[in-house]
């Protein structure tokens, strides 16, 4: 029987100035449409329904991007027999954001069975996004049967090795990592020595004040190893990132939002645009969670990320696909 686990929100007790009460209150709302903004080490939380009241300057970020994940194009079973429709709804949601994202990050499981038509459909739908540029990392569903060859041809033209890559936007350094290849029996996600060596080198020349965003499919922290929700050799990668003042790790794979802060590193996982999965240990297996139709959209979502120069960390806002949640409190899931 899988053991019951509490929310995986671990708090760093290094007296780094983060207000714990505010942080926990914020986390209680996470996933229902909350803006969490870090200012001088203090985390402030704002419900999306009151955003209009806030000083626009507070929300104006210098860089805005959105993360979507786990579109699983080709999946056609309960609880979602039309994942194309919910992906379109996610794109609509992104297009309706107050501050248009400059680009999108897709943290993998673009397709469900690595079929060409599945990738094609996602590409087609994403063309409707206001942000024309999309950066990808593969999920394990994107590299089935060919060790990621098709994925690389489609999305990894300017990437290294198995598809890892980095780029800069408005002074923020982005790193896309691949942890879904060369998986071993009984194992977790893996980065591998070649990628780790590349990462160490890629980060070398950056000043510690450069904000870094790392995105990869499988979580880089141990969310729930029993279900494969973790990366075997992520500790080494995190070691290279430790010196930076602000690191944000964006992952997918688990089809639910979760957040953890460790020193200067904020880990965040996104909802899927296709189907939800159970919380760690709350089901026999991490398969698709069947929910009543009216509840589905409250458990799918997008993530909006804003960076304002001078602020300690990026502001990460999750919002569900439920109709009308763009400016209202979602009645969606509470963990």
């Amino acid at each position, binding site marked *: 029987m899988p053991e019951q686990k509490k929310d995986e929100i671990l708090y760093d007790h290094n007296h780094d100035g983060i207000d714990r009460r505010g942080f926990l209150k914020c986390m209680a709302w996470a996933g229902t449409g909350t803006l969490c903004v870090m200012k001088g080490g203090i985390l402030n939380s704002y419900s999306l329904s009151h955003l209009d009241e806030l000083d626009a300057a507070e929300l104006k970020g210098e860089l805005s991007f959105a993360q979507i994940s786990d579109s699983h194009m080709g999946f056609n*079973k*309960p609880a979602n027999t039309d994942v194309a429709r919910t992906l379109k709804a996610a794109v609509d949601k992104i297009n309706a954001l107050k501050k248009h994202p400059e680009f999108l990050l897709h943290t993998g499981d673009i397709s*469900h*069975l*690595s079929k060409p038509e599945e990738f094609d459909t996602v590409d087609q739908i994403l063309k409707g996004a206001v942000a024309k540029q999309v950066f990808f990392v593969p999920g*394990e*569903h994107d590299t*089935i*049967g060919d060790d990621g060859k098709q994925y690389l041809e489609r999305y990894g033209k300017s990437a290294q090795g198995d598809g890892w890559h980095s780029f800069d936007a408005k002074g923020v350094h982005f790193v896309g990592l691949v942890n879904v290849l060369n*998986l*071993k*029996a*009984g*194992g*977790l996600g893996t980065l591998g020595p070649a990628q780790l060596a590349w990462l160490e080198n890629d980060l070398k020349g950056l000043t510690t004040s450069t904000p870094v965003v790392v995105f990869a499919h499988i979580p880089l922290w141990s969310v729930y190893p*029993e*279900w*494969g929700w973790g990366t075997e050799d992520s500790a080494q990668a995190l070691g290279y990132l430790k010196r930076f003042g602000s690191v944000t790790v964006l992952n997918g794979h688990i089809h639910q939002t979760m957040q953890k802060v460790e020193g200067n590193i904020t880990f965040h996982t996104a909802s899927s645009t296709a189907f939800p999965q159970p919380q760690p240990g709350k089901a*026999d*297996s*991490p*398969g*698709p969670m069947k929910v009543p139709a009216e509840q589905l959209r409250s458990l799918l979502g997008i993530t909006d990320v804003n960076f304002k120069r001078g602020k300690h960390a990026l502001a990460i806002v999750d919002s569900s696909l439920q109709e009308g949640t763009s400016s209202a409190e979602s009645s969606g899931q509470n963990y």
Partner: protein
Amino acid sequence: MKPATKMAVVVCAVAMMLAIALLSFANPAPQKTMGNPSQVKIDNFTFTPNALTVPVGTTVQWVNRDDIPHTVVSDDKTTFKSKAMDTDENFSYTFSKPGTYSYFCSIHPKMTGKVVVE
């Protein structure tokens, strides 16, 4: 043989038989599936039976009853390697050599199983 020795041999033999019986009771031979004896069902991210014993020359069939695709790949990644099986699809492999074949799902590597070929 002296009567005492004969007795000793008999006692030893009985003891051994008892031990073997107890051992096999405590560690039952890997289960075979009811119905088709050389079929492995995949459901809920699990291979059932997890350990399957078959005679040399058997064709084992894996059937995916889960609502998520899975694969069957031998640990060495070369002996056998299925395509992705969606729900109700299957994969077969004929074991022509004895041995223990551990395998896993390459999409969800935490899923493991083995086939023992005798």
